[in-house]
């Protein structure tokens, strides 16, 4: 403000109850008029200390925990944890198990991005219309999950060494019926928003993260790819047989909110491509190997990571030959992506801060664990 019109800054709380903080998350913003001078995040409202609880349960009993950290992509969490334990205990997963895992993880990515892209459209103001379209399709995915794993949101479907149950008969035609409808909705959603001048005016050049800062702040997922860094764990360190599938990674131009939105939209299309290829070449055979209930992996440590919809989801396990992990650590992509929240929001207006927060696509369950 010029020196004549003097207005002293005051602190304003965005959250924890706020329509667009995607959960119980608070930003203590020091505001001068519409401009934000300083933004400090306050988290911990949903802290259940899973890492302490996990140390007192067997490896198999910990699987339901992983559903509840990032409740928007429980399949991916299960997959990450099972990979870490399999790496620790050196367990082989049969072909069919790996293919089912890929299908489930990619369907979960589409469902999670439906929520992420829809919520971002809400934050820029396209109130409820795009998110309702995406939610309609996400319901179909949740029905597919319910059909295979018994639960819609916290599926608890994967086990150490494979998956809990084999696919039901009607699974394939259900997914094949779902894919064209989903593609149509993605085109509608993109058509409504990406070309829209108001959306571009609200999202382009907002919350820009240059690529050096993105790498140095150890961001991952759409945040990192938005800044033009071509880093996707499915390509860099393929797990569960991802190297057999042909798909591309979308990367952005200048790391602003708009790039991250179009990346999430494109990633949904790529995931559908992977699901189709996995369904075509679905191998026969057992869906999982036999693993003793009280698994006792050899002493040692292991860190395995997957590309969850929000970024690099890692599990660091230390075993002391006991039935329960000695140390169980989850690398939360949402929390680490928040490192640049201050750089993104300071200087912009409150409306931009909400758009910036929406573009990170946080899940508070994962932040607070």
């Amino acid at each position, binding site marked *: *403000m*010029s020196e*004549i*019109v003097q*207005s*002293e800054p005051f602190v304003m709380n965005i959250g924890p109850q706020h329509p667009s903080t995607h959960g119980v998350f608070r930003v203590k913003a020091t505001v001068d008029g519409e401009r934000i001078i300083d933004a400090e995040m306050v988290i911990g409202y949903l802290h259940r200390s899973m890492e302490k609880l996990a140390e007192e349960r067997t490896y198999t009993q910990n699987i339901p925990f992983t559903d509840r950290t990032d409740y928007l992509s429980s399949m991916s969490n299960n997959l990450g944890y099972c990979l870490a334990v399999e790496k620790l205990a050196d367990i082989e997963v049969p072909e069919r198990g790996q293919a089912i895992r890929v299908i489930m993880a990619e369907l979960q990515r589409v469902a999670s991005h439906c929520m992420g892209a829809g919520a971002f459209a809400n934050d820029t103001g396209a109130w409820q219309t795009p998110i309702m379209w995406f939610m309609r399709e996400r319901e179909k995915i949740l029905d597919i999950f319910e059909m295979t794993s018994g639960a819609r949101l916290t599926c608890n479907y994967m086990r150490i060494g494979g998956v809990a149950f084999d696919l039901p008969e009607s699974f394939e035609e259900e997914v094949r019926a779902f894919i064209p409808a989903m593609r149509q909705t993605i085109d509608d959603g993109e058509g409504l928003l990406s070309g829209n001048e108001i959306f571009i005016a609200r999202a382009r050049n907002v919350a820009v993260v240059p690529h050096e800062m993105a790498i140095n702040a150890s961001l991952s997922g759409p945040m990192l790819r938005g800044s033009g860094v071509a880093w996707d764990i499915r390509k860099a360190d393929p797990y569960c047989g991802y190297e057999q599938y042909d798909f591309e990674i979308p990367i952005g131009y200048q790391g602003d909110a708009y790039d991250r939105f179009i990346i999430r939209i494109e990633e949904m299309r790529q995931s559908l491509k992977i699901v189709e290829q996995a369904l075509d070449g679905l191998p026969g055979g057992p869906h999982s190997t036999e693993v003793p209930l009280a698994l006792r992996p050899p002493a040692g440590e292991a860190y395995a990571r997957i590309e969850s919809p929000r970024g690099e989801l890692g599990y660091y396990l230390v075993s002391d030959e006991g039935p329960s992990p000695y140390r169980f650590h989850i690398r939360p992509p949402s929390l680490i992506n928040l490192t640049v929240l201050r750089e993104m929001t300071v*200087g912009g207006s409150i409306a931009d801060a909400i758009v910036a927060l929406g573009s990170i696509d946080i899940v508070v369950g994962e932040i607070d664990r």
Partner: protein
Amino acid sequence: MDGAGVGIAFWALAFVTLGAAGGVMVSRNLLHAVLLLIVTFIGVAGFFVLLSAEFIAMAQIVIYVGAIAVLMLFAIVLTPRTIRDNSETAMVGPAILLGIALGTVFLFVIYDTEWAVVASDPALSAEDLGKALLSTWVLPFEIASVLLTAALVGAIMLVRTSEEEAEDDA
């Protein structure tokens, strides 16, 4: 405008306007004062309607309520908290004296002049006003517009952030 309704309307409006004007002086909270002032402006516009000068009534609402009242509201909202209450000041005594003096002058003027009561109300339509403004009164009209432009430019210059600060705002 004549008939029974006008009488009722006149006294009602008079009561509302004077009440609001009194409220402006008495009210503690400065913002209450401005809102009551707005009610007074609307009351005065009502009087213009009673005098069947609709154009001036509408102009009164647009200019006073639409612009000047909003200006005053902004002025109050931007002043820091301390100056905002209409608290006791030492100036109450002289203010009352000045008020009484002004009041007597007005009353004397009202009784002294004999008002030319017009038999039938002239059809002061907007058209005649427009023609009058642009024919006989064109000079004051132009001077007023120049004055307003100058005020506008002044205001913008006052608030304009300096050059380099404007850069990082864009």
